[in-house]
Each structure stands twice: as C-alpha cells, then as structure tokens.
C-alpha cells in the first residue's frame, strides 16, 4: 500500500486530520483542473468543495485499481462536467472571454499572447487533456482513466490541440 493509499484508508475511517492532509495535498490540483474545464474561479471552488466531500464520503470505495491522484481527478472531472451542464442550462457560465478569468497580467510578458488566446479558445475537452498531461503529468493510460475515454482518444485530442496551437505559434 502506498503512502497515498494509506492516507485515503485513514480518511475512510473518518479521520479528519488525515482528510485535512489529503485536502492540502490535492486541493490545488483539483481546483486547477476544474478551472481548466469551467474557467470560473468561483465555480472551480464549488467543484473543489463537492469533490472533497465526495472523497470524504466515498474513500472506503477506493479499490486501488488506479493511483489516488487519478481517482480524485476522476471525481473532480465528473463534478466539473455536471456543473458545466447545469450552468450551461441556466446560462450562468462565463462567456469564453479571456478577460473574465483571473490571469496574472505578468504572464503575458513571458508567453506568447496569441498562444494564450488560442488556449482560451480551445474546446474544454482538448484543454483538459493538455492540463492532465502538462500540469498533472499523467501518462496516456492515467489520463484515459480520468477522462473515461480510450487511450487512442487521449492521443487524438492532444494531437488536435497541438495542431491548433501550433498554427498560432508558426503563423
């Protein structure tokens, strides 16, 4: 049993200290992943809260078939997409306006503005693959597990995202 699995098994016994440690360890990853899908800090915080409550209630159901990180991100994904559908119905989701997001203004000094704009314009299912690979360092298999899609689809989404962004970098 890995250290992460042991921590989760402690959470399954309703150990609040262990749960706080787990929260501290995964809060940023869950929040950033939710943000990559929803693009709203407020909604991403809601998803973080819902995800961690689901972890608290469902830790006993973890079977160890995947990494703890993959399991938690999978829950976050389901929560984020449920929010996405809910918000789309009520049309409360922020428009895909880059200015609507909380972005460090100095970031554009270091990166190509056009690429950032292109990243904003990517469909969310392409953006979340990039996020899982570049930011969470997931393998093809792990990303496929989180997204509940075949490994080939992970590769093709990554390929399309790369082509779209490459146009901006090379034009």
């Amino acid at each position, binding site marked *: 049993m890995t250290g992460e699995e042991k921590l989760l098994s402690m959470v399954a016994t*309703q150990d*609040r200290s262990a*749960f*706080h440690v787990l*929260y501290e360890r995964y*809060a*940023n990853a869950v*929040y*950033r992943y939710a*943000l*990559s899908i929803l693009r709203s*800090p407020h909604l*991403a*915080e809601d998803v*973080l*809260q819902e995800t*961690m*409550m689901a972890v*608290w209630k469902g830790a006993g159901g973890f079977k160890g078939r995947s990494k703890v990180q993959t399991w938690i991100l999978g829950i976050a994904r389901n929560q984020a997409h449920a929010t996405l559908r809910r918000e789309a119905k009520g049309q409360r989701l922020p428009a895909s306006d880059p200015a609507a997001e*909380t*972005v*460090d203004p100095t*970031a554009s000094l*270091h*990166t*190509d503005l056009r*690429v*950032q704009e292109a*990243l904003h314009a990517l469909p969310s299912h392409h953006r979340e693959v*990039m*996020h899982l*690979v*570049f*930011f969470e*360092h*997931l*393998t*093809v298999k792990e990303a496929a597990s989180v997204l509940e899609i075949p490994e080939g689809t992970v*590769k093709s989404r*990554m*390929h399309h995202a*790369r082509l779209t*962004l*490459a146009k901006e*970098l*090379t034009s």
Partner: protein
Amino acid sequence: MNCCHIQEALPWYVSGQLPADEIREMAEHITGCNDCQRALSLMIRLRNAYMSLAQAGTTPSDRVWAAIDSKLGPSHKPHVDVGSFLLGLQVGVSANARRTQVRGDLRIFGHKVRIIGRERKENHVLSKQER
C-alpha cells in the same frame, strides 16, 4: 519508431511520462531528424505557454476548506489542551465523549510527572498537582 509515432508521443516526452527505454529511443531519433526536432521545440513552447497560463492566480481560497470543515460537523473526540508555558508547566487533558474516559498528564519543563488514567481518584491527584 517513425516520425508519426515520435510526434504523437512528444507531449509525454516533454512531461517526462515515458519509460526510460522509450525516451532513449525517441532521443536517438530526434537527434537525427530535423522535422522531429522542430516538433519537439514547438511542443516545449506549448507546454511552457500552458504552464504559465495555468499557474497564474490558481490557488483556491481558504474559504473552501472552512466550508468543508463546517459540513463535516463537530469532531467525535473533543480534545482540550491547557498549557502554561510561562510557568514551565504543561497540562494536557483529553476526553473521549463516547466512553466517558478521562485521561490527563502533567509535564514540568517537558518532563512527564504522572499520567492520569480512567479513575476519578487519579484525576483528583492531577488537580492537586496542578495547584
């Protein structure tokens, strides 16, 4: 390995998520292939751009944990600590509400003097020592 396979695997190559033998094989190919070198350069720029964007202002506020903590409700095991570091005394008392068990210990300058168990009698001893 051909160029198509190499370029498909580049995202995982730059994020270090490939087995060592595959990385070695890819590195050998890229060294001798101008197309794949360009593709690698592009992938590194994309990754850097994404990392820069994703890192900007992306930490959740403390309110989230506070909201979760309040949803969890009161803790099962109330715990009370009393301490007086000015006098060099540290008294710890913990109580398990379910089993009505009371435990206590007294430390003077870090040395444990006595551990109080379940019986009330021993708790009186602690009280005297505290005085």
